């Protein structure tokens, strides 16, 4: 459903952020993209919905060649690609509900957006999603009054409001504490399964990637150096991606080993976030 072929991006400064990235994903699943800072993870994600214009190569989502689209068609295609950010990127002065509904901006008319008169089904879907991400009762709270974990939950709700086929997730947990990180990642993975989306997650934390991803792609200096399942990530693989280091403590040993705080997660989700 997503095929990326020979994608390159060279910035005007001459930096080659992507040097011919290719991979293909045929079914909805969670794919983690790992790699050191500057390996091109963020550029890759943004080249898919063309927030950054790729230099060459193609991105094909559900038989639609994104890289060939005109501006209007691109906007239409972006509706099917939800995006979640490290810094949440909510519109700070708007309420939680308005932020969630901003996921529908590609679907409603200008006047509907101007008057904040969204179709009733959108509003009830937003309520459902806000409840689902653990923010019931928060709909009239302004986004700048929320904690990091709460903001990221709004970010997730906004992305899912788009009814996306593809979720592009850029370092969702890098600004969160370890516990909130896990809760957010778990929520993201659960919802991806529920909504049947393909989810591409840029993530620094190799442990979290192994814990939650069906497939892991390793980037180094703009090139794919690893593509496989979580179990196939060995110390040698991490050395290939990140360089020489003692990786023995990073590799996940027992699949469900460090999950002990997960069951209480749902109950304490709101309190902790």
């Amino acid at each position, binding site marked *: 459903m997503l095929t990326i072929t020979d994608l390159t991006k060279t910035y005007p400064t001459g930096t080659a952020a992507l040097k011919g990235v290719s991979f293909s994903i045929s079914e909805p699943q969670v794919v983690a993209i790992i790699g050191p800072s500057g390996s091109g993870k963020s550029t890759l994600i943004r080249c898919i*919905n063309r*927030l950054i214009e790729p230099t060459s190569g193609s991105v094909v989502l559900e038989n639609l060649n994104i890289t060939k689209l005109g501006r209007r068609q691109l*906007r*239409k*295609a*972006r*509706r099917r*690609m*939800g*995006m979640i*950010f490290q*810094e*949440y*990127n*909510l*519109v*700070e*002065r*708007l309420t939680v509900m*308005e932020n969630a509904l*901003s*996921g*529908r*901006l*590609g*679907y409603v008319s*200008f006047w509907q*957006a*101007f008057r904040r008169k969204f179709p009733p089904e959108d509003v009830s879907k937003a309520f459902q999603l806000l409840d689902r991400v653990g923010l019931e009762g928060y709909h009239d709270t302004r986004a700048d009054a929320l904690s990091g974990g709460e903001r990221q939950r709004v*970010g997730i709700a*906004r992305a899912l409001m*788009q009814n996306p086929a593809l979720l*592009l997730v850029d370092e969702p947990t890098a600004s969160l504490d370890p516990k909130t990180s896990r809760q957010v990642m778990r929520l993201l993975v659960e919802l991806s399964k529920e909504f049947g989306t393909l989810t591409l997650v840029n993530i620094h934390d190799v442990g979290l990637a192994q814990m939650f991803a069906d497939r892991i792609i390793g980037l180094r200096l703009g090139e794919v150096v690893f593509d496989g399942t979580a179990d196939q990530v060995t110390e040698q693989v991490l050395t290939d991606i990140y360089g020489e280091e003692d990786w023995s403590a990073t590799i996940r040993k027992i699949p469900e080993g460090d999950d002990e705080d997960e069951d209480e997660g749902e109950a304490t989700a709101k309190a902790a976030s």
Partner: protein
Amino acid sequence: MTTANQAQNSQNNVPVPREWHTIKLIQNPYYRYGLIVATIAYFIFALTTLEVDWSRIYTGLPRAGDIFVRMVPPDFSRWSLLTRGILESVQIALAASFFGMILAIPLGLCGARNLVPKPVYLVARSIIVLTRSFHEIIIAIFFVKIFGFGPLAGVLTLIVASTNFIAKMLAEDIENMPAGQLEAIRATGASFPKLLIYCISPQALPRYLGVSIYRLDANIRHSTVVGIVGAGGIGQVLAATFTRYDYDFSLAILMCIVGLVFVGEFFSNWVRGRLR
């Protein structure tokens, strides 16, 4: 063994005195002190070339005293002329602020580098810089020459001044917006107009209103000034009293201007306080 080593180490590491200074603004001491000496030298030079005509100051002082004596008590007897002037000034300020607020929106948006293509940005910024480079008085003289004496010239002057002031603030405010929010809304597939009303306007609105109210306050002050060159309002009345040596009426007008500015300032602070 290790403790012995550590002990020996710390003995060997007798702290060597090392110097540290903050980085000076001008590194080279010759330039640094040279600049200070040059500044003082210029100051002395400027003082010596300043031709102060002490005799004129000497004869001027009693005249100033005379004016002040003739100013008191202030003469409020021509209150209808006074209130008409004040009202005209307030109307000039209100009208100019209102049109300035409206015109500043397109100009401000076009002046924000992160929103528009470079040529549009450059044109908008040029307009802002160009109109800012002339003082209100100069613009007022220009409009008085075109449209004649009266409030129309004053309104137009202050519209120009308000527009570029609010537009500049708006443009800078938008440029300082975190790029992430714009990116996120663009990523939903929203068009530019939707980006404008859903992301930019809620983020920029409170400051835009604050700046506009501040400008209204400033316009009340400026409206009294542009009147002096004939652009209507209480300033024009004030200028007339000076030429006719009606100093007691002048004082009455000045007192009213102080009161008016005071009220404007108070109102502006009150509104901006509520906008937070």
